[in-house]
């Protein structure tokens, strides 16, 4: 291929496009290119391939049925541009470009490919006069519409986020409030648990038990004292009874000693015996002794006198005569005799005295026994009548007191035991209460932990925090609303501008082509197509003939091409079938386009026997 052809032509290579399965390459030179081929040999498929790469056509309308992949390669201005089509699943087909060619424009299908399925031609055939969609496609209005739609889709998404956020915020608040309530409840229960160590009732019971135990101890001490006293009294009683026994024994002994108990006679007998002996002593022994003593005294005096020479020897000291008897010798002899006589008399006297003493002693013994017996009897009477009964009464009294004390002790013990039981019950009840509270506490702590986890999760969910995120979403919604409004305005401006440009272009093309039969064609304020016949009669596409409808359609397409694509897409495609109704008008249009479009491509049918697809520069 020459350098000229590289710049002066565009080549198209198609594979698995429409009816073309095997790769097919066609070259379109500048100017007129006529694709000549019998029916159903791939003319339209080539155009579809061209449309796919320089315009927008649904990929599923392009890829060959049953094929997984297809591609179109455009060589233009020394550069290759590829679009790949591949099937995803059963229905869906996706397209992928390597690079978008500079002659690409999504409006190409609408205004530069005049196949029977062209939108403008179809609308007219169907009698659809509302051209809003065409205006949108022609201008950027469609793009703005897409932008508005996208922005509008975002608003509810963010509103929903905000709603969820508010729900989360409410939930977060609710959880936090619940956490506070739970914490308070936990504190209350913890406090109650601390107070449950000893209740006021238990304290009262414990104090009462302690008091009763003191009282019991006191009663026991008192009882012990009484028992000691009783023991002493019993011991005393035993002593008294022993004493009584002894007294009675002594009494019996004395009664046996003195049968008949005739103490007076016995005493009288002793008295008479003593008196008799005393009389005997005073009448016999004492006078004799006195006499003997006197005589001895006198002799001793005489002897002393003799010795002193006061007396004459031989004279009787008593009679002053010579007395043989009281001579010196005699006196001595007599004195000796006297001594013996005194001794005898004294012995007799002593014997009597001794006897008297013995009798007196015996008499005293009797007296003593008598007194003793009296004393014993008195003692026995006192013991029997007073002391022992008194002691027994006292013992009985003490025993009763002990019994009373015993009863009091038992009563106190019973009372203590009852209170201790009560205390035990209280303690058991308290333990149960503690366990119940501890269980509740565990449950509440678990609940709290769950809620704190949830709260943390919610906090984590919103990095900036719930309130800030809410504010963020509000700002986003506000911005999105502003953007939507802005692009809506841009859409309207674009569409209005497009309409103006389009109408002007229609007027120009109409003037240049100078089709008879019509005076004016335009899009009105409501985006509706208005067609006026010569003479100013307004008509509708439905009232037009097929030929007229196609003419109006082509005028609209060419006007749009001139207004919007002329400098962007150097291609215009005409299907001969479309124009076969009116060869003269067809020629006029071809000539008109050939002057204005660098690559005018026309498809035409040749007889079936030719079989091959050919591209020629003449019709």
């Amino acid at each position, binding site marked *: 291929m020459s350098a000229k052809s590289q710049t002066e032509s565009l080549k198209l290579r198609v594979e698995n496009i429409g009816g073309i399965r095997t790769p097919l390459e066609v070259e379109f030179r500048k100017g007129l290119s006529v694709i000549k081929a019998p029916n159903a040999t791939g003319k339209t498929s080539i155009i579809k391939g061209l449309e796919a790469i320089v315009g*927008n056509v649904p990929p599923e309308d392009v890829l060959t049925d049953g094929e997984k992949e297809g591609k179109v390669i455009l060589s233009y201005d020394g550069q290759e541009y590829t679009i790949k089509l591949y099937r995803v699943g059963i229905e869906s087909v996706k397209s992928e470009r390597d690079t978008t060619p500079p002659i690409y424009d999504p409006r190409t299908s609408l205004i530069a490919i005049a196949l029977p399925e062209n939108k403008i031609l179809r609308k007219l055939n169907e009698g659809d006069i509302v051209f809003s969609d065409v205006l949108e496609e022609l201008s950027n209005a469609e793009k*703005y519409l897409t932008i508005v739609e996208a922005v509008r889709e975002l608003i509810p998404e963010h509103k929903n986020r905000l709603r969820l956020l508010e729900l989360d915020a409410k939930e977060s608040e609710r959880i936090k409030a619940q956490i506070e309530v739970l914490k308070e409840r936990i504190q209350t229960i913890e406090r109650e648990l601390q107070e449950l160590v000893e209740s006021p009732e238990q304290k009262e019971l414990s104090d009462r038990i302690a008091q009763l135990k003191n009282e019991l101890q006191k009663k026991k001490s008192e009882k012990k004292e009484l028992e000691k006293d009783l023991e002493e009294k019993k011991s005393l009683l035993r002593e008294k009874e022993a004493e009584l026994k002894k007294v009675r024994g002594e009494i019996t002994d004395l009664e046996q000693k003195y049968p008949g108990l005739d103490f007076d006679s016995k005493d009288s007998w002793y008295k008479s015996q003593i008196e008799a002996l005393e009389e005997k002593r005073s009448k016999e022994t004492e006078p004799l002794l006195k006499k003997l003593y006197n005589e001895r005294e006198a002799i001793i005096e005489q002897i002393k006198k003799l010795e002193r020479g006061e007396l004459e020897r031989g004279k009787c000291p008593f009679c002053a005569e010579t007395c043989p008897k009281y001579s010196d010798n005699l006196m001595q002899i007599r004195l000796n005799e006297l001594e013996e006589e005194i001794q005898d008399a004294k012995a007799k006297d002593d014997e009597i005295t001794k006897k008297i003493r013995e009798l007196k002693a015996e008499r005293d013994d009797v007296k003593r026994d008598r007194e003793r017996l009296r004393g014993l009897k008195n003692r026995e009477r006192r013991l029997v009548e007073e002391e022992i009964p008194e002691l027994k009464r006292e013992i009985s009294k003490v025993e009763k007191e002990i019994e009373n004390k015993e009863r009091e002790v038992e009563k106190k013990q019973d009372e203590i035991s009852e209170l201790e039981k009560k205390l035990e019950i209280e303690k058991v009840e308290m333990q149960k209460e503690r366990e119940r509270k501890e269980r509740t506490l565990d449950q509440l702590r678990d609940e709290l932990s769950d809620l704190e986890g949830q709260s943390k999760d919610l906090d984590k969910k919103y990095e900036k925090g719930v309130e800030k995120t809410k504010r*963020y979403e509000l700002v986003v919604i506000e911005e999105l609303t502003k953007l939507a409004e802005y692009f809506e305005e841009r859409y309207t401006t674009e569409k209005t501008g497009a309409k103006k440009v389009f109408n002007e272009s229609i007027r120009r093309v109409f003037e240049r082509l100078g089709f008879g039969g019509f005076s004016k064609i335009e899009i009105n304020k409501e985006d509706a197509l208005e067609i006026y016949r010569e003479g100013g009669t307004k008509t509708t596409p439905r009232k037009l003939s097929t030929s007229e409808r196609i003419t109006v359609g082509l005028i609209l397409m060419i006007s749009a091409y001139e207004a919007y694509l002329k400098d962007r897409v150097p291609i215009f495609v005409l299907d001969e079938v479309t124009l076969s109704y009116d060869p003269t008008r067809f020629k006029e249009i071809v000539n008109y386009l050939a002057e204005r479009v660098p690559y005018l491509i026309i498809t035409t049918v040749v007889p079936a026997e030719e079989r091959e697809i050919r591209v020629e520069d003449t019709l």
Partner: protein
Amino acid sequence: MMVEYKELELKLLEIARLLNGKEARDRIKEEVEKYVSEVANRKLEAES
């Protein structure tokens, strides 16, 4: 504001030119999200 929008507008128009239907809307949404997020973050920062 207009200047700010202009940059975004050109970007979005280019996406709308090159892509169709849902694909175009999704890409536009991505860009718009990015833009409003920046604006919102700036505002929040200014407020705090």
